[in-house]
């Protein structure tokens, strides 16, 4: 009975918050839809739907498939620089899309390093613009994220089970079937879903690397409707279609199995490290992944470095604004996650759906809806910073939830009964029973929230005022004024700060983390 009451009260906070999120997003959509005019979706819009789906499905499959060997190698090998490599895996995902695209083109573009090298040895060049370019871009941005998510899965396999498997003399194949397989069944849908959702609403990268209007996504159509045609009912209709696709994906990826494993004692983990060809394979996977991720990043760093110290003061000021906003977003996101995750873990599909919904929502459509709601009461430019933080918190929640849910479920499965028998509730249960097991994904979730908020260029543009110049806006503004050297330096500063914030939170999570 006590257990019931406890679960009920805790879920209440999460359910209330989920309801609030749903209301907020619903009213934003309604505000758009209620504008005069009737939405008409044309044949080309359905073409955009098809292309959005195609590229998102392929991007998710490719990113996760390529992440598997890398995550496994990272989980079972120990080598100098491993920690750095894991930390650096956060970097591409956090790059502002434009910076990432320009970095990738510096390597794979027509005049990029790869084609220059091919030309030097008189081989035909590669041409990436088109679907291949889109997939390349999305794998670059999202494969590392998938690696991190899968790595958490491997690290969550209790040490006791590994030892048991070893003492039973299970070979690599049998170990896969009994330990890694069940873990993957738990973790893979979440990773696939996360990448799919990110890619579904991608648009600047798709357009630049996609080579033309063939590569048009729904988000571009929404952008066009909000920013260019001012056809808000159409924007609402398109946003609704996009939302429907995402909701469908969330439902399909659901039905997760509970972790079939019993509890462990949180011992430091050591997976078996098979030698022979398996060692070679792991080394190859790690080497290729590191090279693939490092080269475009190196391009960004090398281009930005020369101008870094001569940036105008207004850029540094903007950097401070952005850092403060990012910290606020991370803090608020953390609070929301602590309320939402237990409810979602307890099987409240509604809560999970509400928290995942922002990812399915076009930030631009959401921003425009909020603008319409607020404008009668207050000058939108006066609220530009709080609104941007709010939207960024919403946008970061889905990642956080995906990261936190499996670990929370496992912690509850492992420690819940013990905590219950000791009468641990509320804060003490969170602090002693759950949080030590959640630190790793929780730190990463906060880091993602901070960094995503740092790089945001979507919502702020709608609400921008002379008081709210953020770093991404400055990068954009420098680039729009021919100052590409300064823009590259400012972009590097943005990347360094985003990644710095991410690494700080991530480090907090990984230091002394149990399990």
């Amino acid at each position, binding site marked *: 009975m006590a257990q019931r009451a406890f679960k009920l009260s805790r879920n209440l906070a999460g359910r209330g918050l989920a309801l609030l999120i749903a209301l907020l997003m619903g009213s934003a959509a309604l505000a758009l839809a209620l504008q005069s005019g009737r939405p008409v979706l044309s044949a080309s819009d359905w073409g955009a739907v098809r292309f959005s789906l195609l590229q998102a499905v392929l991007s998710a499959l490719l990113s996760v498939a390529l992440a598997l060997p890398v995550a496994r190698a990272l989980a079972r090998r120990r080598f100098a620089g491993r920690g750095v490599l894991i930390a650096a895996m956060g970097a591409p995902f956090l790059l502002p899309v434009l910076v990432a695209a320009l970095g990738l083109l510096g390597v794979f573009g027509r005049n990029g390093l790869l084609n220059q090298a091919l030309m030097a040895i008189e081989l035909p060049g590669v041409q990436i*613009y088109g679907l291949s370019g889109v997939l390349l871009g999305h794998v670059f941005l999202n494969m590392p994220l998938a690696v991190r998510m899968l790595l958490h899965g491997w690290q969550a396999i209790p040490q006791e089970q590994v030892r048991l498997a070893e003492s039973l003399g299970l070979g690599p194949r049998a170990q896969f079937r009994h330990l890694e397989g069940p873990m993957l069944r738990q973790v893979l849908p979440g990773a696939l879903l996360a990448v799919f959702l990110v890619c579904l609403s991608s648009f600047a990268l798709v357009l*630049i690397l996609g*080579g033309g209007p063939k590569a048009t996504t729904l988000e571009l159509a929404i952008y066009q409707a909000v920013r260019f045609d001012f056809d808000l009912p159409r924007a609402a209709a398109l946003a609704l279609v996009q939302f429907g696709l995402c909701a469908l994906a969330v439902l399909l990826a659901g039905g997760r199995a509970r972790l079939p494993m019993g509890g462990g004692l949180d011992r430091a983990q050591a997976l078996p490290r098979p030698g022979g060809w398996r060692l070679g394979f792991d080394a190859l996977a790690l080497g290729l992944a590191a090279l693939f991720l490092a080269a475009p990043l190196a391009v960004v760093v090398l281009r930005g470095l020369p101008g870094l110290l001569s940036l105008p003061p207004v850029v540094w000021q903007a950097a401070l604004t952005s850092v403060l906003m990012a910290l606020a977003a991370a803090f608020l996101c953390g609070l929301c996650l602590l309320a939402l995750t237990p409810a979602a873990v307890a099987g409240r599909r509604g809560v999970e759906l509400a928290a995942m919904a922002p990812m399915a929502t076009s930030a631009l459509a959401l921003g425009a809806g909020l603008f319409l709601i607020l404008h009668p009461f207050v000058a*939108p430019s006066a609220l530009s910073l709080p609104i941007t933080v709010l939207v960024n918190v919403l946008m970061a929640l889905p990642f956080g939830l995906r990261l936190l849910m499996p670990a929370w479920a496992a912690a509850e499965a492992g420690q819940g009964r013990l905590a219950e028998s000791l009468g641990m509730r509320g804060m003490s249960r969170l602090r002693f029973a759950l949080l030590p097991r959640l630190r790793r994904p929780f730190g990463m979730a906060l880091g993602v929230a901070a960094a995503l908020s740092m790089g945001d260029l979507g919502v702020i543009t709608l609400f921008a005022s002379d008081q709210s110049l953020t770093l991404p806006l400055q990068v954009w503004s*420098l680039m729009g004024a*021919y100052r590409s050297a300064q823009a590259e330096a400012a972009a590097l500063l943005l990347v360094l700060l985003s990644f710095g914030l991410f690494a700080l939170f991530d480090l907090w999570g990984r230091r002394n983390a149990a399990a």
Partner: protein
Amino acid sequence: MKALICAASLLTLTAGAGLAQKPVLTVLTYDSFAADWGPGPIVEKAFEAVCGCDLRFLPGGDGAAVLSRLRLEGARSEADVVLGLDTALTAQAAQTGLFVPHGQAAAPDLPVPYEDPLFLPFDWGWFAFNYDKTRLPAPPASFEELAASDLKVVIQDPRSSTPGLGLVMWVKAAYGARAPEIWEGLSDNILTVTPGWSEAYDLFLKGEADMVLSYSTSPAYHLIAERDDSKAAAGFAEGHYLQIEVAGQLKSARDPELAQRFMAFLLSGEFQAAIPETNWMYPAKTPAAGLPQGFETLMRPEKSLLFTAEEAAALRGEAVDEWRSALSN
């Protein structure tokens, strides 16, 4: 110490009160106009010196986004004046009914006669394909030559960017019913399509493409600000489409008289002299000292193309569809 703090806070208060008494003029404009390195700060200083007011720029994205922002805000806009729409947008802007006539004489130094009771031009430029003379010694001299070459160009998406829309209008103005055929011919020359001007221009600077859609004045930036004379704009025999940037006064302006003074200030020598080397466009009224040195080296088209606002609005949907279907094959 306490006295010092008291004095300081008193000073701040009075300074604040002094500011509060000044009327504020809010100008909604595109980001690069308001930026530290744009014309904004120069204009602000010059106007505040004569108006006894506080001029405030509200950056609203690019030209099209500025219009969207205005339409989101409607009659309760924070802004008094909107600055930075172009002729592709004025028909929609006029339809909102939010603007009042500016009452100024027509800008004298435009390559084509342009008069609109609601919108006053403050600068203009020709769209043009830019190239690097060191990499491309003999640039194409028309769309047809470009289509026949194996050069790669970067353009902007007409659905999200004003230069992109300008190019679609350019082809339509030059070729009319033949426009789809021209786009078919160009489709294998288009390396990629970017959402906005910045990405396209950056790809060009990085050597990804041989040419980029920009303005005939773009080489002036490299020449004057970077002492680099390698960039040039290719002159096309069909003529070049114009972008005329305009400003308009809002009906809802809090202080219509002040807004009116700002509209008159647009064609003043101080405002116009700031344009060439901060906005990198041609001034709508050439300042007394003439154009800055370097502008005389720029390519000047023999023929200027421009649809009226109504024509542009009527043609836009069809022209963009032609562009899309030709490039989607």
